[in-house]
């Protein structure tokens, strides 16, 4: 059991923002939840799966975000309550279906939670999902604290049912992955039965067919829903104001930026001068509420992440109502008061507020600040992200890198999203040369592989992870085979969606609920499509490199090399050493060797360090996980491994 369901109504608990969203969905009586893993959203589906049994939930990790949204939609169409969860890039994947869903409307309460990642803390983009709400004309809610993350999620289901429209709840990393106290509400006893009605009047929202056509009629209906949402939002308790009746400056904000703004006002002691208007309903904005607050001041600052979404929408309302509320001076992203990229924090708001209000603020004594900065430069060497000790990707990229060097024709690798993204840097021997969305390495390679007619003779490789293979690589592979593109796809199969915490994917024999399910074999899919398929263990360095060189030489079309080894952090490998490894100090001759400290300088495993005093390589017992691969890279054979019985 879990503290997300054990605790009674009124209990106060410390929970992550994502857990608060889970509790909100449970209090709303969610029936079906789906999603695709992606930081910072993954804990929502994970936690729901842990508590699925008693309230009779159906929870699944879907193959990608578009299918996840379609799976959840079926529940809504059947009058159940449905939740679909994804990170910001996932919304792009799901957006084609979302466009049509917004047109067709929904039945049972349907909430889409998107967790955006301003500042790209664990992404290779800082894409905005909020603009989809405006683009596709659907309501958008943004919780401003942990309690709201719960309460708003619950309310979003009611709102969706009232409007017969999907409702978006947008979180951000600092909300989803931060924790705070919340007070629980009641879990419902109601049980819903699934029934899909389709034989009433075709245009009837409850009993007709569910389609986005006739477009003219449906689009009007859709906009009527947005007008209704706007009216509801005028009185919504998630839009709050704190501050003086007539502030010098009105600060309008949403989401985690509300907490930063409140902190900044407190740090500057500006509570008497700044009014804080937190918007929980950020699309559509309620015009009367905005007019009321805008009319009480001349200066307005908007604080949000990442793009000026709220800012632009507030400005439109202010322009429309200018005759009534007067002309305002705006501070925000467009005038450069607030940065237009990256995530916000209290200090950026402090800087913006202190400049507009004319307050001097120095966070630490100047001398201390100087000393601390100098210490970092002198004594805190930069710590770049690296593949974990025992990671199969380090071995895979070592072989790919070496095979391409040996081939010596400027061959290169197109990559995509996963831990293996890090192969763009030194931990993966700088092997990746393009990096975009899920599956795009294979798609881009498919295009590169057709450039021979323009004189390109470089070998073309792509890599993808196992979960990514199912998510978005299969169409690219079909494309490459059908169009006779000459490429080698390396599937880094580490037995799970490793980067986001080992969520199961269609290649495994169990699902998120722990049930036995039919695994779908990557090799057989590739063979079925018509590719040549080889399988290697990445820890077999020599065999892998030989196979790679052979595949690169083979110009017959699409070749797939599946590198199969579980992630070092996976349940099957974690805390289990295959080998005990040590450096034989009588054999390692350090700088004398001529290898140029090959093991530590090039291979770069955190468990294999350089002892500067002894001038020899050394195993860090606390870090080493005993994969034993390094024993094969020492030219002297000084690294010894013994199998653990």
């Amino acid at each position, binding site marked *: 059991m879990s503290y997300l369901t054990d605790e009674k109504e009124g209990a106060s608990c*410390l929970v992550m923002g994502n857990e608060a969203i889970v509790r909100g969905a449970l209090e709303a009586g969610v029936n079906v939840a789906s999603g695709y893993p992606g930081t910072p959203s993954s804990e929502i589906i994970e936690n729901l799966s842990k508590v699925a049994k008693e309230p009779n939930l159906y929870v699944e990790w879907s193959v990608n975000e578009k299918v996840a949204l379609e799976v959840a939609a079926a529940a809504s169409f059947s009058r159940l309550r449905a939740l679909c969860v994804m990170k910001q890039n996932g919304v792009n994947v799901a957006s084609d279906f979302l466009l049509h869903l917004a047109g067709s409307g929904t039945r049972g309460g349907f909430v889409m939670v998107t967790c955006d990642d301003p500042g790209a803390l664990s992404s290779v983009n800082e894409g905005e999902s909020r603009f989809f709400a405006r683009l596709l004309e659907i309501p958008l809610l943004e919780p401003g604290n942990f309690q709201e993350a719960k309460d708003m999620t619950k309310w979003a289901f009611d709102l969706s049912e009232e409007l017969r429209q999907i409702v978006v709840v947008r979180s951000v990393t600092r909300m989803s992955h931060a924790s705070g106290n919340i007070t629980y509400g009641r879990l419902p006893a109601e049980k819903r039965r699934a029934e899909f009605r389709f034989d009433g009047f075709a245009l009837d929202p409850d009993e007709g067919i569910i389609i986005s056509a006739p477009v003219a009629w449906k689009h009007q209906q859709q906009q009527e829903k947005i007008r209704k949402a706007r009216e509801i939002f005028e009185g919504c308790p998630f839009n709050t104001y704190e501050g003086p009746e007539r502030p010098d400056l009105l600060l309008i904000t949403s989401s985690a930026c509300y907490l930063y703004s409140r902190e900044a006002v407190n740090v500057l002691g500006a509570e008497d001068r700044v009014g804080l208007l937190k918007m929980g309903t950020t699309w559509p904005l309620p015009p009367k509420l905005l007019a009321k607050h805008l009319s009480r001041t001349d200066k307005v600052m908007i604080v949000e992440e990442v793009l000026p979404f709220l800012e632009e929408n507030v400005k439109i309302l202010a322009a429309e109502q200018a005759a009534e509320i007067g002309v305002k001076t705006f501070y925000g992203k467009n005038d450069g008061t607030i940065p237009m990229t990256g995530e916000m924090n209290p200090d950026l708001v402090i800087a913006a507020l202190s400049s507009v209000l004319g307050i001097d603020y120095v966070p630490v004594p100047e001398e201390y600040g100087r000393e601390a900065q100098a*210490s970092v430069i002198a004594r805190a060497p930069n*710590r770049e992200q690296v593949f974990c000790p025992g990671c199969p990707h380090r071995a895979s990229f070592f072989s790919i890198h070496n095979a391409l060097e040996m081939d010596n024709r400027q061959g290169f690798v197109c990559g995509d999203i996963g831990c293996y993204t890090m192969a763009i840097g030194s931990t993966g021997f700088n092997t990746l040369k393009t990096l975009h969305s899920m599956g795009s390495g294979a798609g881009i390679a498919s295009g590169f592989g057709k450039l021979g007619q323009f004189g390109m003779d470089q070998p073309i490789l792509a890599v993808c992870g196992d979960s990514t293979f199912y998510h978005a690589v299969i169409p690219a592979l079909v494309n490459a085979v059908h169009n006779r593109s000459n490429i080698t796809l390396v599937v880094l199969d580490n037995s799970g969606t490793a980067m*986001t915490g080992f969520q199961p994917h269609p290649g495994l024999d169990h699902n998120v609920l722990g049930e036995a399910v039919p695994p779908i074999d990557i090799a057989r899919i590739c063979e079925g499509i018509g590719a040549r398929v080889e399988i290697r263990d990445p820890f077999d360095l020599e065999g892998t490199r030989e196979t790679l060189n052979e595949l690169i030489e083979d110009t017959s079309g699409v070749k797939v090399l599946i590198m199969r080894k579980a992630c070092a952090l996976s349940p099957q490998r974690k805390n289990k050493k295959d080998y005990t490894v040590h450096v034989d100090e009588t054999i390692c001759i350090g700088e004398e060797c001529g290898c140029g400290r090959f093991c530590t300088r090039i291979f770069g495993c955190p468990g294999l360090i350089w002892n500067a005093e002894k001038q020899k390589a050394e195993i860090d017992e606390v870090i080493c996980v005993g994969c034993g691969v390094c024993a094969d890279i020492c030219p002297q054979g000084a690294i010894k491994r013994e199998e653990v019985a």
Partner: protein
Amino acid sequence: MTAYRLPKDPYNIIITGVGGQGNVMASRVFSNMLVQKGFFVTIGETFGASQRGGSVMSHIRVSSKSTWSPQVPKGKADVVVTLEPIEAIRVLAGYGNPAVKVLTNTRAIYPAGVIAGRLSYPSLDEIKETLKKLSARAWFIDATDEAVKLGNAILGNIIMIGALSAVGDLPVGRGDFEAALSRTLPAEKMADNLTAFDLGVELMKQ
């Protein structure tokens, strides 16, 4: 909530280290100890990439009044707990101030650039000198080495939590640790964790 008067409200703790050292677990356990005592606690943490050997940080905001931002403003840390010594220097450059207290695990984890020979890692004496200069009080604890003696290096984080509770600014101790841990940890792992916690308290007396 609670009548306890914090030395400062909000009181700001930063727990830092390297991905894989149990940073997140340590911050959750300590925060739950405070929640049981009736405080509002906000934790801000960066993970996702945290298992990948990078620097990680949890910001813990403790208040008797309300929820604060998941990010501590610059220069406003009251105590910094570090599971890896140079990470303390990095954190102080952002969040330190002349009144800050620092608790440092002495065991180094070398960054990739150091292992490769591109960067150099300071000596423990240099680290101590820097941290003493940048703090009002600094403690140095051989947490990983002691944890290895207990049979599991990961317990270094719990030793540091024990040490943090012994600083004395916050009204939490062994009983709160046991209660907080029992919420998430299987009973068979409890004894080792309590031993580690007690050891952390003990090492602060030396």
